[in-house]
């Protein structure tokens, strides 16, 4: 298992594509109130890795994506750092740097609704050519060819290049948007709910293509509420609850026999129709009025006195009473429980 919080010292030579440390976002509301949308997120992404960030709507996962793209609204405040491989801090960079050197070039965005992401009044070809010109500074004569190549990389059929977005099916629009995201050859691909509203075949097709594009040279961060899509694409799953990443887990373990260790992640998995189809009781807390301690405690069957204190995010898990295959020796002592599992 890779560990996000502590990497070996020689990591400096092969810096990860994205290193997020203590990323927090809060929104300033009227009357000095704050809504803490993301709290203290830590994770790293190496080239070739595909991380799926899953959670309920309103858990803060889209805010995290917006923070990484510098697209937060004005009343947002950020803390922590999100370092790209070359040392750019996505949270500290100003708008000019983000627009000129980051978006498209270092971070490619695969949007939520491709049809809305494409300009409706221009053909796919003209949008690809514009992006090629802007990002690659391709000489005029070569633009047309470069745009066609870009379309080819995303398997967008060349005979559809002169169509307008509304003339494309959902799948082709998705490929067109992916082609645009890939042009800058960004080392980090960020997909924000790329499969919402698509039917199952198209979901599988879309995530397979995303996996193909990630290959071994790029890293992919996919934000989704669709666990099936996450299972198909990701090698690691990060579960977010009430603004915090509560567990990061290898996808094989997460969906496999071992299962996730955090009770929330377990509940989410068990809610799938393929499994128990049982909802987690209650609803997530408001991000504007988070309880003291573990935010999941109120809905958690394993909660105890210890859960009044926020569990630290250690060993890729933030829970006082993680679920493990064998009964924990003493649920009040997380270290022992962990040790039992390590043994």
């Amino acid at each position, binding site marked *: 298992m890779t560990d996000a919080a502590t990497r070996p010292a020689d990591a400096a030579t092969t810096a990860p594509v994205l290193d997020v440390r203590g990323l927090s976002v809060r929104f300033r509301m009227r009357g000095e109130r704050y809504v803490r949308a993301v709290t203290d997120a830590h994770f790293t992404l190496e080239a070739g890795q595909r991380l799926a960030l*899953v*959670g*309920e*709507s*309103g858990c803060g996962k889209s805010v995290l994506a917006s923070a990484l793209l510098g697209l937060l609204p004005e009343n947002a405040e950020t803390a922590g750092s999100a370092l790209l491989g070359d040392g750019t801090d996505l949270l500290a960079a100003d708008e000019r740097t983000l627009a000129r050197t980051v978006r498209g070039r270092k971070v490619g965005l695969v949007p939520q609704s491709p049809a809305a992401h494409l300009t409706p009044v221009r053909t796919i070809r003209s949008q690809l050519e514009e992006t090629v010109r802007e990002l690659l500074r391709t000489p005029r004569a070569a633009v047309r060819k470069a745009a066609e190549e870009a379309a080819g990389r995303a398997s967008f059929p060349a005979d559809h290049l002169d169509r307008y977005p509304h003339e494309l*099916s*959902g799948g082709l629009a998705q490929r067109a948007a992916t082609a645009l995201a890939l042009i800058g050859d960004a080392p980090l691909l960020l997909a924000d709910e790329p499969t*919402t*509203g*698509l*039917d*199952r*075949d*198209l979901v599988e097709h879309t995530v397979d293509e995303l996996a193909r594009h990630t290959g071994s040279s790029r890293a992919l961060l996919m934000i989704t*509420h669709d*666990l*099936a899509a996450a299972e198909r694409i990701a090698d690691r799953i990060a579960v977010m609850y009430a603004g915090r990443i509560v567990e990061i887990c290898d996808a094989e373990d997460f969906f496999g026999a071992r299962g996730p260790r955090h009770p929330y992640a377990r*509940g*989410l*998995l068990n*809610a*799938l*129709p*393929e499994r128990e*189809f*049982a*909802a*987690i009781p*209650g*609803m*997530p807390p408001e991000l504007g009025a988070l309880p003291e301690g573990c935010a999941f405690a109120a809905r958690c069957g394993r909660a105890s006195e210890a859960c009044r204190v926020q569990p630290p995010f250690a060993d890729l898990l933030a829970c006082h009473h993680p679920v493990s295959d064998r009964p924990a020796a003493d649920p009040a002592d997380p270290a022992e429980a962990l040790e039992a599992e390590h043994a």
Partner: protein
Amino acid sequence: MLEVDAITAGYERHKPVVRGVSLTVRPGESVGLLGPSGCGKSTLARVAALLHRPDAGRVVVDGTAAAGWRHRAPRAQRTAFGVVFQQPRLSADPRLTLSALIAEPLRANGRADEVPEKVRESAARVGLGDELLGRRPHEVSDGQLQRACVARALILEPRWLVCDEMTAMLDASTTAALVRVVEDYRADTGAGLLAVGHDKALLTRWCDRTVHWSELEA
């Protein structure tokens, strides 16, 4: 019995998206209608709920043929259906609080005196607390808003439920919770269900039987 008989429907002339489709839901039965996006299954659901006038064909609700669609359908026939749509944001009037949203069908039918009691009952059924009921749609999450939309659909105690991709925007836990709500309601009242969607695993788990769109088209 809900009979949808040889329906042809669309939004532009001579370009029907639904061609000659027939489907029957027996009382108390739940039918899942599977199909790829854009195939016309949502249009069929709207026709079945008397919300879209088809170009040809008829809908028979409990033995009575639909006399009209939208406002032209008799109120008793319209309110026999509870409908839930895919996107809760678009299905909720942004100016109404959640409790006003849930109460709206009662008020529209001149039953304002029953509002406090029924809203409390209906909100409890979907798990919405008092604090959330006072908020407006932009102050709650998609999942919470969809709960309110389900509560609104159930408040008149319809004999038929039409759920068009009800859970497509929701996470697994909220999906399971809302399906539970619908199933509990059906167990209490014996209402029939037409659930439209693209998620095979979900609909096979949820419904008595599922039909695929390709089997329906003549």
